[in-house]
């Protein structure tokens, strides 16, 4: 479960990014598998298990996704999904639980979120500065403080 979860996802091309966006968002997600063209049904069935993102932004072949208070969905579930989609995230950000409901964190960094980046096929923890230095302001400014 994530209080906040964000990912900057590299898709294979813009068409795929647009399709994923469409299949994820509440207003455009089809109601039934039969509403989806046959060649996209497998993808739909994977994405249909996923919570609606609070924010989705397309930038060519990259997709910014942000979930707020996503029950049953967090870093582990997101990376499992990305593996199944054969996609990678350029980085992932997560505040793992609602800090207002009483969970305590060992340090302030933990409370303000965790970052991961892909390194040799594995998502490894990095600090905020690593991410903010590497990615464009247009993406970094979307991250919660």
């Amino acid at each position, binding site marked *: 479960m994530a209080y906040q979860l964000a990912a900057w996802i590299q898709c294979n091309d813009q068409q795929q990014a647009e399709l994923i966006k469409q299949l994820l968002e509440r207003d455009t*997600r089809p109601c039934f598998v039969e509403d989806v063209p046959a060649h996209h049904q497998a993808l739909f069935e994977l994405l*249909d298990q996923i*919570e609606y993102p609070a924010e989705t932004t397309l930038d060519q072949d990259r997709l910014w996704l942000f979930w707020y208070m996503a*029950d*049953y969905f967090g870093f582990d579930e997101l990376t499992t999904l990305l593996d199944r989609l054969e996609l990678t995230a350029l980085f992932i950000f997560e505040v793992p639980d609602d800090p207002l409901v009483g969970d305590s964190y060992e340090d302030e960094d933990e409370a303000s979120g965790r970052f991961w980046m892909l390194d040799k096929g594995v998502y490894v923890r990095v600090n905020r500065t690593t991410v903010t230095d590497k990615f464009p302001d247009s993406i970094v400014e979307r991250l919660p403080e």
Partner: protein
Amino acid sequence: MTDKNGEYKSPKSPYENMKYLWKVDDEDWVAERKEQWRQLTKTICKSCSAKRLKAHGKFFITGEETPVTQDGSIDTVTKFILTPFTNSTEANELYQLITHPQAKSRILSEFMAHISRIAPEMPWLRAHVLNFIEGVLGNEYQLIKINTGRREHIISPDPTAVCEGFTKAALKLMQNEQTYNYSVDTVSYFISALPYADRPKFRKYIRLQGMLDEADKIMQKPGVHSELVQDLARQLKEREDEIWKNWKTLEHLDQSQ
């Protein structure tokens, strides 16, 4: 209570006894229900999680309830609205199967406003309202109490809220903000609730004058508005004296405000 897989299962869901209303073996019925669901998703459960919305859809089409532990809980009033009863007897049968006083009270109080909000485009909207009135609510306001053995519960809607809600709904309909709502079919119920509208702080929100002025305007321009709007305006104007008379029953409450 848990089932054989250890999942939570409601021990007394009234909907299990009403499964016959869902014609799941009839392909045409299911196809139509699916098409209605595609429309409903635009208006229902707007802030729901994906899992909850899916649970609503499953219930609407099949009558199957998702265990609460899987975030599939559906609001009592919504569930009642999504049940495909087709006459007043079936509506009453379902209502009688619901035994929890709070659930019964919420259905009586919230069904009308809620159905207009979540299912404004459904072809069964008005039929559902009429079946609910005939089978559950009645045409006259009455104080309804039920005894659970431990204590007595008043489950009838709050009359002040009934009147406030009615005037708002009537204005919405007459000002063409909605193409249909319950007001046109509950004029008698509203008028009979007026003498019991006893909450001084909220009486000022019962917009009788504004509603009757709007009805006047509509009556002066016959043919401009829909049949429904004209019907509502006509009913209100025909019973204007009765409306004011019932309102004045508790008018002394307004002087202390």
